[in-house]
């Protein structure tokens, strides 16, 4: 069982609104211990060469067939795969646990890029609901708009939408960064637990409703604040981080981050660090 300890010394990350606890025990730290690497096999991963590139036309494939073929191509060492004619199909590009350059020439439907850990994905179209749900690591860039529940429950990685997104962006997110170039809908950051959301445009009602922790940065107007979402001071560290992140995200490089609003959890509704039993935290 994970052993969670509160620490009193504030780190730079914590000063920016991140969580105030450290994780020890039987958690990812042990799981990814390099000393035990040879005993560790990550199912579904392959050695791929980014310079080995191929196209895959999925026009006449089901999502299952397309995903299986992507897996097959990775097993052959292809490190760059270009998907042609996705045509709004659901559940494409899911469960990829590899480093991989995956490019979609078109739009995805629901649940695209779900449960991935590591790939760099570029989608030259839009995505439907629940894109990149449960993303663990990697980078996903969407050139156009995205539907609701964008980045639901992500644990890590960078999720970038250059257009606008629907409601409940970053719902239940537990880490990582979501960056929106346009506007975002209602309940953005609903029940988020960690991680950061950046919205360059306007955001709808109930921003950060019932958020446990984490940070939301907004460049435009806010429809309304949700329960327990409160303003915080935008520090120099925040601004430096925002500039760096927006540059990496290929959007808003010239955006005046000094005027952004910073929203964090007031922790009046629910104090994630102090009130929750240790056993439950370990399970998260």
């Amino acid at each position, binding site marked *: 069982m994970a052993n969670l300890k509160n620490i009193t010394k504030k780190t730079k990350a914590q000063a920016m609104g991140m969580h105030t606890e450290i994780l020890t025990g039987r958690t990812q730290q042990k799981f990814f211990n390099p000393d035990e690497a040879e005993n560790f096999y990550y199912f579904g991963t392959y050695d791929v060469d980014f310079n080995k590139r191929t196209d895959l036309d999925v026009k006449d494939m089901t999502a299952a067939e397309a995903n299986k073929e992507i897996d097959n191509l990775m097993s052959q060492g292809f490190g760059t795969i270009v998907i042609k004619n996705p*045509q*709004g*199909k*659901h559940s494409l590009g899911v469960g990829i646990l590899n480093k991989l350059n995956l490019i979609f020439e*078109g*739009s995805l*439907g*629901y649940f695209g890029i779900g449960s991935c850990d590591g790939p760099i994905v570029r989608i030259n*179209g*839009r995505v*439907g*609901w629940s894109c990149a749900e449960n993303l663990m690591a990697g980078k996903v860039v969407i050139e*156009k*708009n*995205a*539907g*609701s529940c964008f980045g639901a429950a992500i644990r890590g990685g960078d999720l970038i939408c250059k*257009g*606008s*997104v*629907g*409601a*409940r962006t970053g719902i239940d997110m537990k880490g990582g960064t979501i960056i929106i170039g346009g*506007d975002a*809908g*209602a*309940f953005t950051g609903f029940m988020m637990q960690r991680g950061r959301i950046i919205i360059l445009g306007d955001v*709808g*009602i109930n921003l950060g409703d019932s958020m446990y922790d984490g940070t939301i940065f907004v460049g435009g107007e806010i429809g309304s604040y949700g329960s327990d979402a409160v303003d915080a001071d935008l520090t120099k560290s925040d601004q430096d981080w925002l500039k760096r992140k927006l540059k990496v995200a290929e959007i808003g490089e010239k955006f005046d981050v000094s005027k952004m609003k910073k929203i964090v959890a007031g922790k009046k509704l629910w104090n994630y660090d102090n009130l929750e039993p240790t056993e439950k935290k370990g399970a998260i």
Partner: protein
Amino acid sequence: MCGIAGLIHRGKSSNVGHELQGMLQALKHRGEDSTGYALYGDTDGKNFIMRFKVGENVGEGSSSVSEDVSVYDERKKIVDSYLSEMGAKIVKEERILPYSLRYEIQYDKKDLLEFSQKIESIPGVEILSMGKSLEVIKDLGNAKMVCDRYNLDKLVGTHAIGHARMATESGVDIKSAHPFWGYPFSDVSVVHNGQLTNYWNNRRALENKGMRFMSECDSELIAVYLAEKMRDGASLEEGMKESLAGLDGVFTYFVATKDSLGMAKDTMAAKPLVLYESDDLVAMGSEEIAIRSILPQEIDTYDPFDGEVKVWQI
């Protein structure tokens, strides 16, 4: 779950029957208990088109009670006699299925309330739609099955809305299927995806004002709610905006009139909608694949935001 789809051509007509069939068939995984079409066809606008049923589809999966087919004929005879009594002349008559009929009627009065009440006073008879352009066709099965059964594939018109239904809180029958006619308004139809939680409160209030409900499907409330607003003088768009506060629950709905198509999304944006808009075509559906069935090329689409209402004219 249910899926909805709609499209409107601006400045031209198209084969909307075929197009909507493709859109709804792409959404069949969202429910195929029943499928319904509200098609706005090209007509000369002189006569009313009345789509009505004199019984239910009692085929496989239906929750309706089987009846002797002879009662359909008896009901039809009474409908014909009532029409004659009210001065309505049947110009063209089609019996599509034993229980489903289409009449073209010459009828000069504008108020359809009295007309509709009279016809629907016959037990087992329901007017599915009444209008000079609108035709509501709904039946059990997926979009292709209903399209084939009613020969909708070649219908030409300007706009259309439709619904693929997964029955959750009322029966698998035609009376609970969408679209719902905006009784008693000519050419008004509604489809809905979601769940309304103040259905009974609203229904009781509206029934006290003389509005009629034919099913126990919560979605019917939207059609009746909007009809009542328009009866009180509100425009379609005004009525739709009021519905955001008046209707409680989660919903995305479409409403169509003779020359317009509108959408509304609840304030929590809990139900999906993807929208494509260009100068000559607006197409929308619960999922992008519905739009892709008529526009396979790469297009720009977006999700309308919470509490958004939009109306387009032909």
